């Protein structure tokens, strides 16, 4: 399969929250994607942007938060409209081989790669605790799906409209104090992940975080997404372990805009 966009039809659109929509489509390349991998989504004539794999299989899905130009135009699409897909890209989350007790921490749209990771972990016989945070109840992406799963589910919102009022990291701190977790998987705002990584180090629990950077080629050539000692988020990541991130001066501090210029997070 070449790394050229493959145009496919949108089969189904689901409104998940006031700002998130899920788009289902068929693509042979994405069918076998691992949780935590991503794809480049092309809206012809507009832009091409990275999106995490939400569902992979005979029918696959992405969930898009309406944010700027391209995501707004994606939200205006209807069933039958066409988008281009290339990928899957990146390493994705790797689960332990032995049955383990896993702590997952999702913030905001970071729930996207966490969804298939939880599903895969349950299939493989791991036990899962999920801490899930967002600004308010309306925006708790996939909350109903997580509620139906056999997991420990802790919701928290910045405004207290649902679950605990406060941050995912406050809940994580308490749970980690009780001990018993074998690994942590996280995706969300980088400042949150920076705290999660620090908690993992403090409690000596291996931690895996999925990063976001501005992307262009998606295949490790253009250097747009690189951090630290030449780690390409698109190819060497987007998932990095806590020890690696400890060596990355950029982590939690700055990202780069399309020109390559550093901007503070």
């Amino acid at each position: 399969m070449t790394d050229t966009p493959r145009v496919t039809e949108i089969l189904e659109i689901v409104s998940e929250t006031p700002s998130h929509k899920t788009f289902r489509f068929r693509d042979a390349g994405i069918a076998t994607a691992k949780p935590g991998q991503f794809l480049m989504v092309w809206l012809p004539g507009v832009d091409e942007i990275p999106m995490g794999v939400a569902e992979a299989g005979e029918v696959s899905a992405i969930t898009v938060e309406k944010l700027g130009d391209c995501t707004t135009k994606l939200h205006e699409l209807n069933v039958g409209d066409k988008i281009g897909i290339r990928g899957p890209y990146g390493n994705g989350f790797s689960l332990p081989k032995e049955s383990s007790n896993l702590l997952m921490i999702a913030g905001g749209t970071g729930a996207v790669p966490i969804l298939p990771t939880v599903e895969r972990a349950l299939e493989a016989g791991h036990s899962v605790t999920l801490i899930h945070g967002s600004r308010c109840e309306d925006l708790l992406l996939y909350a109903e799906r997580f509620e139906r799963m056999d997991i420990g589910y802790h919701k928290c919102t910045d405004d207290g409209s649902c679950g605990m009022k406060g941050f995912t990291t406050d809940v994580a701190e308490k749970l980690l104090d009780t001990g018993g977790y074998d690994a942590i998987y996280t995706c969300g705002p980088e400042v949150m992940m920076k705290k999660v990584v620090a908690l993992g180090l403090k409690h000596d629990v291996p931690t895996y975080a999925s990063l976001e950077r501005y992307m262009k080629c998606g295949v490790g050539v253009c250097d747009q997404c690189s951090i630290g000692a030449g780690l390409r988020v698109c190819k060497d990541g987007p998932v990095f372990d806590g020890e690696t991130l400890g060596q990355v001066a950029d982590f939690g501090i700055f990202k780069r805009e399309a020109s390559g210029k550093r901007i503070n997070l």
Partner: protein
Amino acid sequence: MSLASMKTSIGKTELVNPALLASGILDETAGSMLRVIDGGAAGCVTKSIGREARGGHPNPTMVELQCGLLNAMGLPNPGIESYAEEIAEFKSGIAARGIDAKLIGSVYGGDEKDFAMMAGLMANTGVDALELNVSCPHARGYGAQIGSDPDMVRKVVSAVKGAVKLPVFVKLTPNVSNVALIAKAAEEGGADAVVAINTVKAMAIDIESGHPVLGNKVGGYSGPAIKPIGVRAVYDIYKEVNIPIIGVGGITKGQDLLEYAMAGASAVQIGSAVYYRDVPVFGEIVKEAKSWLEERGFSSFKEIVGRTHDI
């Protein structure tokens, strides 16, 4: 079997081996350029830098085609002031490693004044040599529009040579009817070396949607498909000029490097091969070329430079 020396030089610029990183690939951040050096390159060419920050063209900016890569990045760069930080970080990384690795600063501009100013600013960052990008095929007003006019090329090069003391390399576009003529003009302007080739003008259309695939609609082709075009360019230029030539375009293995050398290249640059073989490709290509030379009894890489012209 005797050992073959892979050392080479571009005029006064000595290189530990002939493989350099080409401009625009893994050279936005100091971290990546250092990783390329650790991967076996003798030096890096920076991405083409201008005065102000430039975001580049909208995505898609790069896609894979059957035998190469198609890109229209649109000269994205953070501007020389910000980029100077990456250069400083690169240089301290090289100093910490205690190795010899060169950094060649690529600049672009709209006319000879622009180029002379950018050359001065780039020289101040402490690079070892300059590369003038007079050949980008997809940024309007820059690059190839200058690089296809021999008089403009001569003017730009002599303005730059008047402004800086560093060696000046001129990167040529293959999108002209006679690339050797442009190389000659660069030599007359005072260039210390020419670099051939930049990407080949190209386009891809998605027939399902009818849209051009690239955000900029048209772009430049690189990778294996353009190797014969690059080899021909180097071969023609070698006959026309007396300054060294740096070969670039579609090099993905040791044999490709040797083919360019026989056509007349004293060193090469490698870009798209990072896509096909990832970062260790630089060291691997040098090793492949070295084994080939040793198996055939050559004692140095330099022996084969221009060999085809003597046969």
